[in-house]
């Protein structure tokens, strides 16, 4: 019941925040958001699952009741966590709390609505990561978009409407395609399933129950469904060339929303890819290894090169997210313990580090009201603490050892290099790894121009050190990044435990 309690408390917190006066909304939202944090940490402490939730593993905090009966298929309320979703639940709660704190300074109007929407989004995100029934999952999946749409569209920058609509429509179309793909799988399974519970579907697929549907043979149906679902999730990730909504959304979104978008919302895509495509249809995934690896490498290199061309600090970080998420795809297709495990680990690591970077850019923006690299230099002179954390975060993004990013990237590279899905995987891995040089390039250039050199600022604002509550979330994220980098086993053990059953299906062992 703890998951229901967690989601319910978060919804309730959102509701309370909505009706509070603006003056108290920020502080109250922070205080209320501590409840899910504590709840998720308690879950983590009590965590006792083993194996993969979809493949007959032992699911932690499982609830499974029939909710609605709808013809052939029962709709279940089924939630639970395993080693893949547990770290993401913890990430979601912690990052939301920190994002709420980071919103105290920049959000000046309609606070109670803003913070309420943030909490509403958190509740839906928790639902996405814990739901194990397709219907429940899909409701939460779509419901996440609604608060996000308003958060960008109301509190965003000058082109917020364009960005919000683009985000909403793009990801919604993707969801539709994904939905068609998945439902065709369900119809293909015919009478072998009686509900839309993901474990049941996954296990039926493994048992070879997939029949023909709409004139497609089982194999062709699997391929079509795989492509449709891959497209749907790839937009969310985003994988180049389906990424163009991301920079626009990031640039227009206020800092805390960018943090949530990069830190958690992108992980929905990779999480779903892992849960659906790579767990349910492993043979198909291996058959598509070449195009998927190509897409991964293209995302990494293309995203990094685009980041190099940007002048807006936020755009730089946004494009580098595309690059980082490319690594996740590379790890997933590797079908090795370190590859898929590293990809899952990268979801958490990138969540922390990209959150850190967006917040750091936001803190500078709060003071300077510009994000253009060319508008400033020598900021470190006036904002030494922020600059110090910015530098640390940037090095984390570059994959500095003993920070979470390196652990994740190294796991992925190691797993991808020794992958058996393709003869040429070492070449793809080597190509993708060149991303670590380009990422160093653009971040170092950006830091040199903005943070260092003689102080110069083309604006009328007084550049001084940020207040404590702006810097504190940065410090917490930095600390978490280092802790995870020094001791990745905190999450990596449970991740591997949940990931290994997938690999057995993929024929890696």
């Amino acid at each position, binding site marked *: 019941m703890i998951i229901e309690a967690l989601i319910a408390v978060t919804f309730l917190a959102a509701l309370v925040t909505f009706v509070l006066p603006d003056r108290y909304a920020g502080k109250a939202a922070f205080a209320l958001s501590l409840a899910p944090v504590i709840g998720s940490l308690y879950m983590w402490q009590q965590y006792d699952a083993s194996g993969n939730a979809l493949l007959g593993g032992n699911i932690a905090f499982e609830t499974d009741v029939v909710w609605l009966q709808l013809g052939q298929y029962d709709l279940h309320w089924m939630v639970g966590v395993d080693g893949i979703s547990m770290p993401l639940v913890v990430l979601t709660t912690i990052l939301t709390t920190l994002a709420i704190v980071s919103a105290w300074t920049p959000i000046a109007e309609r606070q109670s609505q803003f913070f309420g929407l943030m909490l509403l989004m958190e509740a839906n995100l928790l639902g996405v990561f814990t739901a194990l029934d397709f219907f429940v999952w899909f409701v939460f999946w779509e419901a996440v978009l609604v608060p996000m749409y308003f958060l960008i569209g109301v509190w965003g920058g000058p082109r917020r409407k364009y960005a919000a609509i683009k985000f909403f429509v793009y990801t919604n179309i993707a969801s539709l395609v994904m939905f068609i793909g998945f439902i065709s799988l369900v119809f293909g399974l015919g009478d072998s399933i009686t509900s839309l519970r993901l474990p049941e579907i996954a296990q039926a697929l493994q048992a070879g129950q997939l029949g023909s549907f709409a004139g497609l043979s089982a194999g062709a149906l699997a391929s079509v469904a795989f492509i449709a679902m891959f497209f749907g999730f790839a937009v969310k990730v985003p994988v180049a060339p389906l990424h163009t909504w991301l920079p626009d959304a990031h640039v227009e979104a206020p800092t805390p929303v960018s943090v949530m978008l990069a830190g958690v919302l992108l992980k929905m895509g990779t999480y779903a890819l892992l849960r659906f495509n790579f767990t349910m249809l492993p043979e198909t995934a291996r058959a598509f290894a070449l195009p998927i690896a190509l897409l991964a490498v293209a995302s990494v290199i293309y995203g990094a090169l685009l980041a190099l061309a940007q002048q807006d600090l936020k755009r730089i970080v946004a494009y580098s997210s595309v690059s980082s998420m490319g690594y996740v795809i590379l790890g997933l297709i590797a079908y090795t*313990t370190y590859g898929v495990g590293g990809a899952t680990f990268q979801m958490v690591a990138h969540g922390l580090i990209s959150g850190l970077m967006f917040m750091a850019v936001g803190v500078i923006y709060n003071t300077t009201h510009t994000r253009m690299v060319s508008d400033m230099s020598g900021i470190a002179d006036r904002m030494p603490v922020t600059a110090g954390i910015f530098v640390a975060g940037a090095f984390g993004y570059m994959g500095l050892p003993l920070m979470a990013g390196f652990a994740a990237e190294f796991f992925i590279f190691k797993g991808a290099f020794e992958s058996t899905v393709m003869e040429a995987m070492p070449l793809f891995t080597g190509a993708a790894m060149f991303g670590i040089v380009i990422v160093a390039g653009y971040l170092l250039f950006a830091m*040199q121009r903005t943070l260092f050199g003689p102080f110069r600022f083309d604006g009328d604002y007084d550049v001084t050190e940020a207040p404590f509550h702006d810097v504190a979330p940065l410090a917490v994220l930095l600390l978490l990044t280092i802790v995870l980098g020094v001791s990745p086993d905190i999450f990596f053990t449970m991740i591997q435990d949940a990931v290994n059953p997938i690999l057995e299906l993929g024929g890696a062992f």
Partner: protein
Amino acid sequence: MAGILDFAPAIVLLPFLSFLIALGAGRYMPKGGALAGIGATAGSFVLSIATFFAVSGGQTYNQTIYTWAEGLDAINLTFGLLIDPLSSMMLVIVTLVALLVHVFSLGYMNDEGETGLPRYYAGLGLFTASMLGFVVADNLLMAFMFFELVGLCSYLLIGFHFRQDGPPSAAKKAFLVTRFGDYFFLIGVVAVFATFGSAAFAGPDAFPVLAEEALNGEHSVNTFLGMGEQAWFTVVGLLVLGGVVGKSAQFPLHTWLPDAMEGPTPVSALIHAATMVAAGVYLVARMYGFYVLTPTTLAIIALIGGFTALFAATMGVVKKEIKQVLAYSTISQYGYMMLGLGAGGYVAATFHLMTHAFFKALLFLGAGSVIIAMHHNENMWDMGGLKDKMPVTYYAFLSGSLALAGIVPFAGFWSKDEVLYETLIHGLGGSPILLAAYAMGLLAVFFTGFYTFRMVFLTFHGEPRSGTARDPHGVRWNVKGPLAVLGVLAATTGLVNMVPVEKLFGIEGIDFLHQFLDGSFSSLNAHHYAELIPYSSGYIGGEAGTVAIGAAVSLGFALGGAALAHVLYNVPEPVEHTDKLGSIKTVLYNNYYQDEYQVWIATGVVQPISRVLDKFDQGIVDGVVNGISSVSLFAGGRVKRIQTGVVSNYAALLTLGLTALLLGLGLLGGWFA
């Protein structure tokens, strides 16, 4: 058994502790945290000495102390300590130089009233700790991780004066260029894991041992891309070498090092003598058991080394700033070490690594002392005549210069001579590549002698050429002390390994370093490497004859260079003779336009590509997305015209629709058939 080696982790942890102290509490402490750093490095130094003697007594230590990532159904990634003769020697070098640099910093930073001292000492502490962690690493992954941390620290310290334009740029360049090398290194690490399933340097599953067994056919390993074992090992070796070339500033990734002179001088001493640049060469020595298995890699190492030695030495000839000369001499000297390693002279190269650490630290600290005296003017043409005003600095600097130039009996002579000797005999044994590398190395000796003494004469001899040189700023004990210690070491460390004397006069047992490095793990000692070396030896006039000829030739070249410098520059009013080189000088002064082409690659190739891609992304990729939405909007804009607002039209449409429906149903229902 609680031997002294069980305390080895403390060697690394102490400087790390000083980093934390300086970072957290440095601003509340006297001297900005320097004392914590001095205490920590002194502690590490004492422990290192104890470790060194324990290792001399035959003890070793090879333990996994932390499991970084535990694999389920996959291998574990671990941290561990490997203390053998090589690492214990390096520990002593690093801790000693770090200690002296900390003390020197009191004079260079604190006494000069610099701000940001806690940051500085924190950087030094982390730098030392990272390097020590790298030195004791027992596997390639851990080595890589600390290798990268060393890079981070170099970034932080080179860019210490971040309020100016130059240092941040130099710091960025240093990190970026070495990162480019590390990219290959990281692929190499991953490849080693994938090939051998282990990246340990020593122990039963050490990857060099597994590689050796694989080549002997006793054991099979994974190779990739359809390559044979020999070819694949060569590829892996070259990949790892990428990191070495970057960090040890070898051609073509040497360009970051001269720029790194923007950092405070004690940091330069640390970077050049003991930490960052040494890391690359140390890595090759560390996994030498792997490199000796692939002759192609060895030959490439030797060629890179010989070429870099000569290439950098020629650039050192024309520089104006004292630190620039030293920077190019560092590149050149590390070239010798690479040459020695590539030529099969494992002990010789290690020996040169040690002697170079002492004399290069000495020269940098001496230069630092001169720079304090000159009020931070580094131009040698403004100096002159400092000999009488700062005798301690002068004699220490002279000792270091004699060692650098390779004049008997100073340290540099013995080690450089041995490197060249090993190259010569293995070259004579039938390897024209090594002979070519030898020729380049030998020629570089001449240039080394010349630029070293040009620097000495311009700085200390002749008449003062500026007001500050006539009345220099004094330096205190904290500057003179480290100089004196290193001055003695630069003069004497050569005596630990007098191979030429042994060979010429038949005195057995004075090649202490050889004996030392022959000890410990059977797969990691010099003896084992000597057996695996893919070269044969050849001599001119017997072994003793070759020794004599080699030593005489290299000494002759060094003296020749020094003599030329003496003639040209040891005069009261020297003039810039290198101007006579004309356009050659321009090329040399601009470093053969190496920087230009690398900057061009970054700003002239990569940046335009990224801009074009950005246009492509905004125009085409996003254009398609926006295009689809425009098509929908356009179509919607057309279709909505049906909504005229005239009720009669709606009624007409309704009727038409009804009629169409009826007709359609009728056709399908077969009414008209």
